[in-house]
């Protein structure tokens, strides 16, 4: 959910679900206890992310590709009833003949720009690229200089340095107080900040650990998985990293590893990170097994969320209602989100195609959809009429 929408809401919740085989929309009643699933949208397409614009509550953008065809973005301006394709999807600059240029493999992340910039969006791609649209997602252009900056290209590393299905630029964050204050993350390639509207970016990696044996001063070796800014205190950010859970309180430039207080047999490795919309001390993670060869499943086959209510000093297990054993799934970085009700609702999409919901901030969980394809992303919104 975009970070600028933190006011208490009530009424229905709509979940936008991206899967490996298409998109789905799941709508609740006002109590959030009864849910209705849509027919698949663009069945067979790989949908990495689907986001509803919090500024008009009608526009939805969907990052899509297929096993064969190149990447694109589909857009709806009527709440998902009809869809059109972007006429100029994100592309890297065409290189002169004989030079090797980069090509967008897939669009991975979508972020609406600042509330004062209606119709404008950012997107992050694989391999790492940053793009912007100023016409509601119809056309896209490279944003900032990082896509062609030799230093950034070096920090992005090679395909061998990235995640198994391609290195990614993700977690594009706009400070709700200042549209020129931006963050993004790269897997791999660290966390970066701009205070001049994207004209320049600089690494923000101090305090972050790397895999044993790798030099933590080298930006390339850093792999943030998911970064979130607290809407109730935009100076505080949390992030789930390849090497632990971190928090930063600006203007400090040093991340603090807050995951060491997690139970040792669970560890603090995972992908998603969720922050409370109105309480910056409260955040959730969904750990996975990051030992040995990185099985990327729930630790011991027992999935659970963990919540901190004091900025990471202490973590509490939240597994009531979730499978007690033999649940060998996990949750991808874009597949855990929240609504803005009171109490906050949490939503988790699993790699085995289930949506689990909690309407009491993680105290209890219920499966609200199953038998979907592998879930890549879940976003929640209060859709307009």
């Amino acid at each position, binding site marked *: 959910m975009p970070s600028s929408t933190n006011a208490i809401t009530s009424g229905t919740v709509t979940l936008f679900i991206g899967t490996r085989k298409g998109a789905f929309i799941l709508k609740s009643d006002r109590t959030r206890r009864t849910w209705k699933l849509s027919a698949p949208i663009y069945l067979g397409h790989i949908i990495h992310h689907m986001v509803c614009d919090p500024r008009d509550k009608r526009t939805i953008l969907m990052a899509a590709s*297929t*096993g064969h*065809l*190149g990447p*694109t973005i589909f857009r709806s301006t009527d709440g998902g009833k009809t869809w059109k*394709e972007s*006429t100029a999807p994100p*592309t890297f600059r065409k290189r002169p003949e004989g030079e090797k240029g980069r090509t967008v493999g897939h669009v991975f992340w979508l972020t609406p720009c600042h509330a004062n910039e209606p119709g404008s969006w950012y997107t992050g791609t694989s391999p790492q690229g940053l793009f912007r649209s100023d016409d509601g997602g119809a056309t896209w252009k490279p944003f900032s200089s990082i896509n062609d900056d030799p230093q950034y290209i070096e920090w992005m590393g090679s395909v061998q340095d990235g995640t198994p299905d391609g290195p990614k630029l993700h977690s594009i964050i706009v400070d709700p107080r200042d549209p020129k204050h931006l963050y993004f993350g790269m897997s791999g390639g660290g966390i970066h900040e701009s205070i001049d509207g994207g004209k320049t970016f600089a690494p923000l990696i101090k305090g972050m650990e790397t895999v044993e044996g790798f030099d933590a001063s080298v930006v390339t070796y850093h792999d943030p998985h998911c970064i979130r800014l607290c809407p109730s205190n935009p100076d505080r950010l949390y992030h789930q990293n390849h090497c632990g859970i971190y928090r930063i309180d600006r203007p400090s430039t040093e991340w603090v590893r807050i995951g060491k207080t997690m139970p040792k047999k669970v560890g603090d490795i995972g992908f998603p990170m969720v922050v409370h919309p109105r309480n910056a001390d409260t955040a959730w993670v969904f750990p996975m097994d990051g030992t040995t060869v990185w099985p990327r499943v729930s630790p011991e086959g027992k999935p659970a969320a963990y919540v901190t209510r004091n900025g990471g000093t202490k973590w509490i297990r939240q597994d009531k209602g979730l499978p007690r054993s033999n649940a060998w799934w996990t949750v991808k970085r874009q597949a855990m989100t929240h609504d803005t009700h009171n109490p906050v609702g949490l939503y988790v999409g699993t790699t085995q195609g289930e949506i689990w919901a909690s309407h009491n901030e993680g105290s209890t969980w219920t499966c609200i959809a199953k038998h979907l394809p592998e879930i890549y992303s879940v976003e929640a919104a209060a859709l307009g009429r």
Partner: protein
Amino acid sequence: MRIHIPGALRSYTGQQTEVEVEGATLAQALDALDQRFPGIRFRIITEQDTVRPHIRIFVNDRQKFHLAELLHDDDEIYIVCALSGG
């Protein structure tokens, strides 16, 4: 010449399986196709003008790798989705 459209791209052509276009090169033929059906070219050709990894293009019975390939009016162009995926 005639371009044969695979199933995965027929949403662009209104389900037409074959499309007549003109062009002296493969690049021009694909540009002509894209003018009639906007967006179709980028799904098969990258921004660096290379054929995407799981797409193959044949002219008559020969696979072609470069967009500068010269064409004749009676050529048959086949866009093929490779057998891959899962």
